[in-house]
């Protein structure tokens, strides 16, 4: 009878609370374990029992004192939010979005579009807060009459947008699955190839009289050639895929890397009094103390951020710095 939660994703659930009490019959969860409160179009809550009792025989006024809106049984909806004002706002906005669905391109300039949006927001606000409801409803009705064709067109447009978006997503998902399947197949083939290679070696050793090492090497080389031939087109395929191209496009738009100027004060770091040779130069300094650092096979020194050029620069700097400072005078 009552609309259950309409949400295929299952992310929203019906709101229920342990302390729920029906404001009409005052029954609560202690008396009725399956108490379910539903919300009327005038945003009042009452239990399913009361709704059956009052509205089974046709439309009737809302039993909440001071309301009296004529309600039907089918109009009751489940509650999603704890706060009924939020419930109401969501409902109003959903309704208004259907009525006022003009787009930017339906207007000549931005100004008029913004005015339209503001008018829509005013209407929404009035409906939510029950301000000048009758006039607002008239306004909505007038809009519906005047723009019936456009509204219908825009509804169709929205539907088209949604369906194209869904298509796009579906295509991407298909691509992904296909790629994963290809990868899986490649792996399997590789495994199979390895197995075949092993088998070929064993067979060869069993049947022929050639040298064992040479046979193994020959079979391996053949297998390597085969796998090479198989892999090549895959790489080119991968490069032309859409994700890679879009990544390349974004890379080109990076900001230019300006060199950093560390010192702009009155201190002189004496860098103009020597010219540093770098470790990667044609003829770097002859320096036996740092041979090990320059080789650095395991990357031990580099890992800690040790940079030989900086160490050399520091030494050179301390060599030329303060060379011409006169010592303090000898007083008597």
């Amino acid at each position, binding site marked *: 009878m009552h609309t259950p939660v309409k949400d295929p994703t299952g992310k929203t659930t019906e709101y229920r609370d342990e302390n729920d009490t029906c404001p009409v019959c005052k029954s609560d969860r202690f008396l009725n374990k399956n108490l379910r409160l539903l919300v009327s179009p005038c945003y009042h809550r009452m239990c399913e029992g009361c709704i059956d009792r009052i509205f089974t025989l046709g439309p009737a006024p809302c039993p909440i004192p001071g309301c009296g809106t004529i309600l039907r049984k089918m109009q009751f909806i489940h509650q999603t939010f704890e706060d009924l004002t939020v419930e109401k706002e969501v409902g109003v906005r959903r309704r208004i979005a259907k009525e006022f669905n003009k787009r930017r391109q339906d207007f000549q300039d931005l100004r008029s579009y913004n005015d339209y949006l503001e008018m829509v927001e005013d209407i929404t606000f009035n409906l939510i807060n029950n301000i000048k409801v009758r006039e607002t409803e008239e306004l909505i009705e007038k809009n519906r009459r005047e723009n019936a064709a456009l509204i219908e067109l825009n509804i169709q447009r929205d539907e088209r947008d949604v369906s194209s978006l869904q298509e796009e997503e579906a295509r991407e998902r298909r691509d992904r699955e296909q790629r994963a399947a290809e990868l899986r197949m490649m792996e399997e083939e590789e495994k199979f190839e390895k197995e075949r290679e092993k088998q070929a070696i064993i067979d060869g050793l069993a049947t022929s009289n050639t040298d064992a090492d040479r046979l193994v090497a020959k079979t391996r080389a053949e297998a390597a050639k085969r796998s090479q031939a198989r892999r090549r087109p895959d790489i080119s395929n991968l490069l032309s895929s859409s994700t890679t191209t879009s990544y390349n496009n974004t890379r080109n738009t990076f900001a230019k890397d300006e060199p950093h100027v560390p010192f702009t004060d009155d*201190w002189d770091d004496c860098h103009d009094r020597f010219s540093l040779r770098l470790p990667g130069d044609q003829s770097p300094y002859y320096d036996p103390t740092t041979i090990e650092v320059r080789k650095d096979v395991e990357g031990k020194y580099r890992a800690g951020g040790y940079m030989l050029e900086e160490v050399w620069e520091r030494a050179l700097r301390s060599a030329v710095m*303060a060379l011409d400072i006169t*010592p303090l005078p000898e007083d008597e």
Partner: protein
Amino acid sequence: MTVSLNGQASVVKKSLYEGSTQFRHWRFSSTSLAKLRASQNADAVAKIRNAFEDDSPGSSSTIQFLSADEEYLLVKLYISKISQLCAHFRFPEEVEATAVSYLKRFYLRNTVMDYHPKNVMLTAIFLAAKTSNHPIGIEQYVHSIPKTKPADVLDLEFLVAQSLRFEFTVWHAHRALWGIWLDVQTISGFNQATLEDEYGQALERVRASRMTDAELIFTPSQIALACLHSVSPDLAEQWANLKSPNTADAVMETISRIQEIIDTQSGPPDLAMVKDIDRRLKICTNPEKVVGSKAYMAKQAEIEAEAARKRTKKAEGLRANMERDPFADDAPGATLVPTEPQSAALNPTRDHRML
């Protein structure tokens, strides 16, 4: 002409070394160094004499206190021991040089008669290892030094750091020499093989210069150049002319002074003499620093009393604050003190405080 003058005035920049603490706080002339040591020594002697007199009047008349030169000689002996210890721990040269600088600087602000250089030396090496990025665990450190406990090193650590004014960075002559050696390779016309040999000899000279006061008077690059000059005068002069063409003569004059100091002062101190000084030091050590002596007890009691006085003063201040707390009467724990309206009326001062 004016344009160039103006341009020059705006371009004059100070080298980064002139911003260092070494330049600003640890730079002296040889006479001012001698004066500083003498006045330091006189102050220390006066203080220690007073301590002896307080202990038992007339007892200081027979004591021969150390002179400034004798103090310096003892420090010098322990400077020479630093390199032995650092070699044992396989510390890099940087640690050794830093520790030497620390020891020298420490005794510019303290006296041997207060703190014996043996322990200060150990602390200086331990601290230098930390500040030059080669830290060693205290247990591992004292393990290889006989008759030393972790407390011997750590108790002095803060004092040493404080005496250094927490200025741990030292500009070393051996780094400057390394830089000079790298840079002379760009001057053509010198044989690389002999150059390496000369660098080794110059480095030995730099190590010798650490036994002197040179680093407290001259800049590291000057000391390094002086050391190279005494090994290979041509090379040093050519390099100096290249690097500071305008002031080359002044630099050469400074260098000759450094060489003179290294030649005359870098020898190790006479061992017999130092032993005699150490024997006398046992007698004239500040009694307030000798653990277990009567003066030490008295000093400790004095410190203790001062601390207690401060504590009680602080506690009183806190208590007064607590009583003045306007919320104290409303607190549930405050029911112990009855605050009826009559008693409040009878007690005007309390009423006044409430306002």
